[in-house]
């Protein structure tokens, strides 16, 4: 409420509370840490600018995630458009260089850690292969621990649609991960 009247200290408290969650959410959605930081900043700036128009009908957290989701959607669409426009085939090396932003350089790490990081990289790549809404809902339920009702409000669909989206995203992930040779048994060996 204080943030609505332009209180910078109150705004700072909000940022401190939600920044990690929002950056994690955006980073998992777009797959690029630097881009995620920029989008998270944009999200908080929009919150600051539109604090006056916020009506506390729904939870503040949902409103924050809604703004972040819209920015993520725009970014995902822009990226796919750019890729289509340029008609460039993104090689695996290029893709990997994208994700190196998220993960530290692990080339000189011991084998086990290297394998672990490599697996994380593949999982992130596979998440990015999912369709937009499936990806967002899966990230919200798995990494943000959100209820279906909240996800429905953020994504802008019904609870039953969210159920279906999450189910399909899990099915797709199962397929994609098994194709990439990542499974629970593989994990057990490591």
């Amino acid at each position, binding site marked *: 409420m204080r943030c609505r009247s332009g209180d910078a200290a109150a705004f700072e408290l909000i940022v401190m509370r939600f920044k990690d969650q929002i*950056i994690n959410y955006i*980073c998992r959605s777009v797959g690029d840490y630097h881009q995620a*930081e920029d989008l998270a900043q944009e999200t908080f700036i929009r919150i600051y*600018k539109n604090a*006056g128009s916020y009506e506390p009908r729904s939870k503040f957290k949902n409103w924050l995630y809604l703004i972040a989701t819209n920015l993520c959607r725009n970014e995902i669409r822009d990226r796919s458009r750019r890729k289509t426009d340029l008609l460039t085939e993104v090689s695996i090396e290029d893709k990997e260089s994208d994700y190196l932003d998220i993960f530290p350089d692990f080339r000189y790490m011991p084998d086990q850690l290297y394998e672990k990081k490599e697996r994380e990289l593949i999982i992130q790549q596979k998440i990015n292969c999912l369709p937009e809404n499936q990806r967002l809902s899966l990230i919200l339920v798995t*990494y943000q621990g959100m209820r279906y009702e909240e996800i429905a409000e953020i994504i802008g669909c019904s609870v039953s649609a969210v159920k279906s989206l999450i189910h399909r995203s899990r099915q797709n992930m199962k397929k994609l991960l098994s194709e990439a040779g990542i499974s629970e048994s593989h994990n057990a060996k490591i």
Partner: protein
Amino acid sequence: MPKFEETSIQLSAYFDGEISRQNQLRVRRNLENSAEDAFELMQIAQVDHLLRQLGPIETTDQFLLELMQRVSEIPPQEELPLALFPRYTKKLQSWFVFLCDQSWLKFHSVTFGIAVFVLICVSIFFLQTRPIPQEVNVPLVARSVDRFIQVDLVSMPITEKQSIISPIHIEGEK
């Protein structure tokens, strides 16, 4: 939607704890009896476990500093002067809020009173307007769908006995 698909969706929602108590019991009963369902649930759990291997991303302190810097550069928003209509709307809103704050009964009685007053005014207005006298000879022009009929009432005065108006001539007849 095929039945197995529906069951699979239910299992996924069950895994997230997003189904009602009744459905939970039903799913549990199914899991005890069906090995396929149990296997499906196990696969969901495995996928979830694999996904959770991606640990949380640590953010830098630089983020907050940069953000606060950007926020400090935003000029303070000036309140725009309200236009005539919104100004009155705001006033009305404040009155209604005042009334609402007092009591709901008061609010409803005031609304009802206004409605009755408007109804009385409208009925008085309609009662006071005089009906058009039938003796006045006014050329009447009647239009049908595909014909244009002109009726001259000057040359043919209407009496009480003559209730039917007969057309003198029809224009534009196809």
